[in-house]
């Protein structure tokens, strides 16, 4: 990695020609707006929270 890393290629691993990268970023903008709304949520006190199985809380209960 050079002293002036390309954040897309060197950090995110997205190695695309500039035109293609610009297109992907353009397409991502609307999605990013939704993710930005998620980022703005204060979830500091929500824990433990990481769930691969969102129904796990019920798994051990009687059917």
């Amino acid at each position: 990695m050079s002293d002036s890393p390309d954040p897309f290629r060197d950090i995110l691993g997205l190695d695309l020609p500039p035109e293609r990268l610009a297109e992907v970023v353009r397409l991502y903008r609307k999605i990013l707006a939704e993710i930005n709304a998620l980022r703005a949520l204060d979830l500091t006190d929500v824990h433990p929270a990481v769930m691969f199985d969102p129904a796990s809380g019920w798994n051990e209960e009687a059917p």
Partner: protein
Amino acid sequence: MSAPSIATLAPQLRAGTLSPVALVEAALDGIARHDGALQSFVHISATARTDAEEAARDIRAGQYRGPLHGVPIAIKDNYLTRDMPTTAGTSAPGIAFPMVDSTVAARLRAAGAILIGKTRTHEFAWGTVTPPTANPWDKARVPGGSSGGSGAAVAAGLVAAAMGSDTGGSIRIPASLCGVVGLKATFGRVSRAGVVPHSWSLDHAGPLTRSVADAALMLGVLAGADPGDPACSRRPVPDYGSALGAPIAGLRLGVCRNHFFARNQPDVEVAIQQAIRDLAAAGAVIREITIPNLDHALGAIFAVELASSTAYHDVSLRAGRVQHFTPDVRALVEMGRLVTGPDYLKAEQFRRVLMDDFRRAFAELDAIVGPTMPLTAWRKGEWEVAVAGGAESVLAASWRLTYPYNLTGLPAISIPCGFDRSGLPIGLQIAGEPFAEAMVLRVADAYERRHDWAARLPPL
């Protein structure tokens, strides 16, 4: 086309008054006559006839295996099968899948079903359309997706049931747009082992059928522990059929007015309001509820789905194979790299928040009812649709009401509840607590028994 249900066929097959061979021949004939226009199948089994002969011999010999024995069933092209190639909808070079049975395929075969062919999926089960599959109700319109081949095949009566997969709505969306039943059980209820993954924590396997009773029959065969899927539950599998026919008087049904009723086409709104009145007329107690945090759910599912899909396709991305993907799927896989680790984990954190909202709601409810989709089938090639007086992208609109149940893993079913003024089907969505499939089926069955939507067939 006639379109008998599994529940109708099974007694005849068991009694020997109907032969699996005749049934398979009829299905193959229907596919030959109609699938040129529908394009719902991508592969037809070369062994379906011999499988049917074997089923007929077993039934004659008294070795009847249950209601799926001798019934032709289609399976989405992202389920691995030992005797039919799997493509997951991709033709990109360098990508191949093994010829082994997924757990679902193996369970269907063990129950005596005849896997007659593979149905079309949009590439890697992305998206809410399934090009070039047509909607049987109007061939100029989409069948939904990504299990659009399964939805079209069942709606057209080519098969009584077909398997789909659902990451953000891909069973329920084609079920709604094609006028059939689509069941996504609780996350972990049906094994995904041998299903080409899309997003590990959102993917569900499930059936599309002509009736609620058939969905119950299928789930009874499909559900159950599987060491091949670490998320698969070890809970015992109840007799889902016992839930059918039970009254719903006194059941508490929630209607979530935020999000689910925010922006729907007028005809959808009218049909759903009528369905709610019908359920109330059957004795259900309707309660208006709010799920406060749904406004942030879209960002969460985007973060999880994009990151997960890109993780799965990481080698293909680095090897440059994604340039051979369809343009929309290629872009989605590439942009998954832009989702950061904190974004992904905050989305997972948010799922806890959303699940807590639903848990609070279900403390006073037996099920939640509402529309499956805000709109009916749109024309092929349309990327914007009119919804509630404004233009909206089909991508944004089409999965808005289904993905909350992928983030939470809650069981949800779509059943037909009428048609819009253009004659296109509308879907009613019923969701329940985790592992409350019997309750979801009970409410759906009670509604279905009061209507004849399932008996209506598209004019092929």
